[in-house]
């Protein structure tokens, strides 16, 4: 029946759908939001980010879906976007989370930018297209939802870091440092047992539902995840595992090499220097981090990004720096993801080719012997 309408009919139909769509959206978006270029140069509160996730799904239904994979202390959903070209088989994955620490607003902004960018380019950029075919991207724009919302409450809460679970055992302060709560040498170094402390690691590993949600998801997917990226600010650093000073990752050299390559890609964008190293070397030692957990369960490439700046603005990075920060961080993430992807998908091809030649050689040798 649609064929009978012809192309003019289709154009009219799509125009009607669009204007209806826009009218519905004007209740959700302010006039400024409709310009995509402006949207990604501003910070957005949690309800805006939630609406944006819905918009990403609506506008890209064949490549974007969402999953609620846990609840925060205050019973809010923890949601990720799963982005990739659908396939029949099981796919490899890239994990990215932003906003473990509430005050690091540039991190959720980067997750949003990253999603926007891969959706913008996957049809025209052959590398992004290839990676979208072979991989699924699991992106959590805001992990510490309670903390992020609290940091938007007013100026006095802007610099909140932890979760919003209450202290126990007579300790009246709020919040656990989610990045000390993972089951990765939990409680060993760089933590505090005082619930008022900024590094309070919780009553036990995974006491926080947010950390548990990530752990649960990663546990289900661990064989498939090629790279784990967790986004923070500030300091302009790329951290490699482990946070414990006496433990080295088995592929430390590879992690450093890939990290330095990412830093070089970052610098090429806006000439910003990002330092690469383990946390005990370049920042401070700490255990119980999501990055360490990722590496411990076998994800080979596990990185923490500390985005701009180096202290002049700190957590309150001006909005006019969102775009350049996201551009350089994207280049760094792209470098790591490409490496992770090519290591599996090109080395597989290389292995197949090598196997083929070996088989042919063996056949030639054995046939030569027979002769």
């Amino acid at each position, binding site marked *: 029946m649609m064929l009978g309408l012809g192309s003019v009919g289709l154009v009219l139909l799509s125009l009607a759908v669009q204007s209806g769509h826009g009218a519905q959206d004007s209740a959700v978006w302010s006039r400024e939001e409709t310009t995509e270029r402006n949207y990604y140069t501003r910070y957005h509160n949690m309800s805006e980010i939630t609406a944006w996730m819905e918009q990403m799904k609506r506008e890209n239904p064949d490549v974007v879906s969402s999953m609620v994979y846990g609840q925060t202390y205050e019973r809010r959903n923890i949601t990720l976007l799963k982005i990739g070209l659908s396939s029949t088989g099981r796919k490899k994955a890239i994990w990215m989370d932003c906003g473990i620490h509430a005050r690091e607003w540039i991190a959720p902004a980067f997750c949003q930018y990253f999603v926007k960018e891969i959706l913008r380019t996957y049809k025209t950029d052959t590398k992004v297209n290839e990676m979208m075919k072979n991989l699924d991207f699991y992106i959590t724009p805001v992990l510490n939802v309670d903390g992020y*919302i609290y940091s938007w409450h007013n100026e006095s809460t*802007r610099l909140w870091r932890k979760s919003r679970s209450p202290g126990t055992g007579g300790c009246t302060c709020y919040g656990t440092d989610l990045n000390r709560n993972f089951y990765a040498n939990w409680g060993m170094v760089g933590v505090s047992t005082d619930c*008022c402390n900024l590094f309070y690691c919780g009553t036990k590993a995974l006491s926080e539902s947010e950390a548990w949600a990530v752990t649960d998801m990663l546990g289900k997917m661990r064989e498939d995840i090629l790279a784990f990226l967790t986004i923070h600010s500030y300091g302009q650093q790329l951290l490699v595992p482990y946070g414990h000073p006496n433990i080295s990752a088995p592929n430390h050299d590879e992690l450093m090499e890939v990290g330095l390559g990412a830093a070089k890609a970052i610098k090429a964008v806006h000439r910003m220097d990002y330092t*690469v190293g383990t946390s005990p070397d*370049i920042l401070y030692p700490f255990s119980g981090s999501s990055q360490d957990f990722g590496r411990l369960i076998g994800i080979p490439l596990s990185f923490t990004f500390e985005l701009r700046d180096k202290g002049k603005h700190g*957590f309150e990075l001006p*909005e006019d720096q969102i775009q350049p920060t996201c551009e350089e961080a994207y280049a760094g993430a792209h470098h790591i993801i490409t490496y992770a992807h090519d290591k599996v998908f090109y080395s597989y091809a290389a292995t197949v080719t090598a196997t083929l030649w070996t088989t042919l050689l063996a056949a030639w040798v054995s046939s030569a012997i027979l002769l």
Partner: protein
Amino acid sequence: MTTGVLNPSHYPARRAATVVQHYLNTRYGSPYRWIFLSKVHSGSAEDVAEMRKYQLELTMQETISNVSGQCSAELLFPGGEGQSAPQVQASCEGLLQSNTTAQEEAFYQQHRASNNMVSGTDIPDSYGHMEPNMKPFWHLGGVASSFIMLRESNESTLYNMAQVANFTQLETEKDQLRFNYHVLLHEMISQEIIHWKLLVTWSPEQGVKVLQSELQPKCHDCEAPPNTTN
């Protein structure tokens, strides 16, 4: 404690270099001159008696003019139980090239008379934004904070000013502009936000001085959940 040649990208050199940054701001900072560490080139650390001595080669950048300069610095962190400040010596080439005299003089004359006391809050605000006329007061807050950050620094700290919570101009006295400042410092190694109240003076001739400083207690009772519906 790391001793000998330091890796420029590792934390011991970076923390010591940031102390040099604070020192340079106490000496040369103004509403139109604010210096930041750009790069650590090389460094070494040694134990000298009870103290820790650092030598560093650095690039510093004046953040308003973007002029960079090479600096050589020597620091002594006192050992033992006392909480005394590190001692710093530094010489820089090319860093102070920018001519700030005209701007400083205009700013000084503008605010010197008592008929319009200026004040401000939340600089920068949550979005990193500030009104252009607040910028020199932000710089001044950063420079004044450097006195405290320098004094409080040791090998286990890394200080930056997070925000000017508020400032109020007071009557000019002895030709010095005077301000009450409430600043938030971010200490990276503990991740704490530390509140200080400062009595700050400035003139183009005398530079920035901090006459009084008062640590504000951390407010644990402020942490009860408000009605957050967002």
